[in-house]
């Protein structure tokens, strides 16, 4: 521990940091050695991923859609996928490695994660079918929505205009109900179950 501190805790060993520090950043920092191509990725996908995410990343049931949805972000029902929405490839590698497959996290080897990432890029028309992903080719990939994000601008866009003394009397001429939750009727029933 630091001189002048409380002297609590102990120095982390290199092997301990290596075991837990698995995060990848947009510039590729943290990527392990390894590589994988699209067709190897398809095999890993079919075995580990397709049962929830569909053979082509189209998703089964309510599980997340991985591919498609291009040019839908400004539509009424946007489809946000790796190809249509995600800004960085590093996030794909990092997230698959840390949290997928759902229920069997951190079970994939670096080569498998590279291959899966390559297959997801292929499903999203970002690369050709002969593409091989590795630490060396990682930064060559351009994500379609890389420029789609900007830092929180509420301070300029909202806060100033909503810091005003509000109306207290005669604020409206008329009031009408325009929408009712009861019409939609999607609220769970069965509060009585808990009582009886």
């Amino acid at each position, binding site marked *: 521990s630091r001189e002048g501190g409380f002297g609590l805790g102990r120095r982390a060993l290199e092997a301990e940091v290596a075991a837990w520090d698995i995060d990848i950043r947009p510039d590729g920092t943290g990527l392990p050695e390894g590589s994988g191509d699209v067709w190897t990725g398809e095999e890993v996908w079919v075995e580990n991923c397709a049962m929830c995410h569909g053979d082509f990343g189209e998703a089964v049931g309510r599980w997340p859609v991985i591919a498609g949805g291009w040019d839908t972000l400004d539509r009424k029902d946007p489809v946000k996928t790796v190809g249509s929405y995600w800004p960085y490839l590093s996030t794909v590698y990092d997230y698959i490695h840390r949290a997928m497959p759902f229920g069997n996290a951190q079970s994939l080897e670096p080569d498998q994660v590279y291959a899966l990432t390559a297959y997801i890029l292929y499903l999203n028309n970002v690369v050709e079918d002969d593409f091989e992903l590795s630490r060396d080719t990682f930064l060559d990939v351009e994500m379609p929505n890389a420029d789609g994000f900007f830092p929180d601008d509420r301070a300029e866009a909202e806060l100033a205009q909503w810091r005003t003394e509000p109306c207290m009397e005669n604020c409206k001429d008329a009031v009408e109900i325009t929408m009712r939750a009861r019409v939609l009727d999607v609220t769970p029933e069965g*509060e009585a179950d808990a009582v009886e």
Partner: protein
Amino acid sequence: MSDTTRRAFLKGAAVAGAAVTGSRAVAQQADPAITELQPWMRYLGEGVDARPYGHPSEHEAHVVRRNVEWLTADPVSSVNFTPLHELDGIITPNGLCFERHHAGIAEVDPAQHRLMINGLVDTPLVFTMADLMRFPRVNRVHFLECAANSGMEWAGAQLNGCQYTHGMIHNVMYTGVPLRLLLEEAGVKTGGKWLLAEGADASAMTRSIPMEKALDDCLVAFKMNGEALRPEQGYPVRLVVPGWEGNMWVKWLRRLEVGDQPWEHREETSKYTDLLDNGRARKWTWEMDAKSVITNPSPQAPITHGRGPLVITGVAWSGRGTVPRVDVTTDGGVTWHEARMSGPSMDKSMHRFYYEMDWDGAPLLLQSRAMDSTGYVQPTKDMLRQVRGENSIYHNNGIQTWAVNANGEAENVEIS
């Protein structure tokens, strides 16, 4: 209140003949609740050894967290809701605090739990829980609101009850170590501008937090409302990020990494980014805007007592400070009344308000409007939609309307 208990309540009220407005009721016959000896008046109750860890009365069995099955693919990466309509004051009981997991509840053995600090620090460190307990502690009351609270309501009134529309929130007293002290123990290097917090569950949840916030008011907390964190709230240790979206309050906290850039991980790119109607998205929308909701009356808590004195109550909060004032309208926003704040007013904590009125039985359009200590006034949903459209999912702090009919039943509605 369930339909069955509501019916029983109304039946009881009818027998007692207490429906007269404006003057005190006179009983037509003696009340058996008084004249008949009740079992609890006659027989002995359970001893002090019967309930080592107490639980609510069986008559409160309906006061529970609830989920909405169709919201998510699976209950393991999902959310449930705090029964706000059954609570009062500002503190949420631990067992009722809403849950949001991404890989289920991690059941962590505290003896096997470690907290690592690594990255741009002078000394990478490992702490045990026993180590953490030896740092100076503080106690703070803060709300934790999911960024997606009210998110299903962006396109219009959908779920009928404030538990569902506003229940992804809880407010408890946390005991913990200021994050600043732990970072100082490791020694943050000059280039350390960002902090990555990581959880120990199977989702290994990660979020990037700017160092300024980390050094300001974040806590590494191990108690809530005086007792150990509940497993579903991150036992044995979680991050507390006052005023900021709940996703950043990493549970089962196992690692803090100092870096010179943000990590842009899944929970801050794919998720917790707010798509606007021009197809571009805000990222790093950390603060939770000022917000309020009337908890009673509300769809799950109708008026069952008829005309006369009516207590309207609700909660308000802001991620940017306190909430010194809440206004209430009963006519859909034509006229507003300043509500009465009651209870402690703490920074980035829930506040309780009341508005007492004499209800004449006419339909009501109830709304509440929070004003925080920065002068920010809670906007209408239409004001939010004008800036953001309907697809941003997160950060819906628009004013909620309940339509109360002549029977006292309330419904989630939108109004012009």
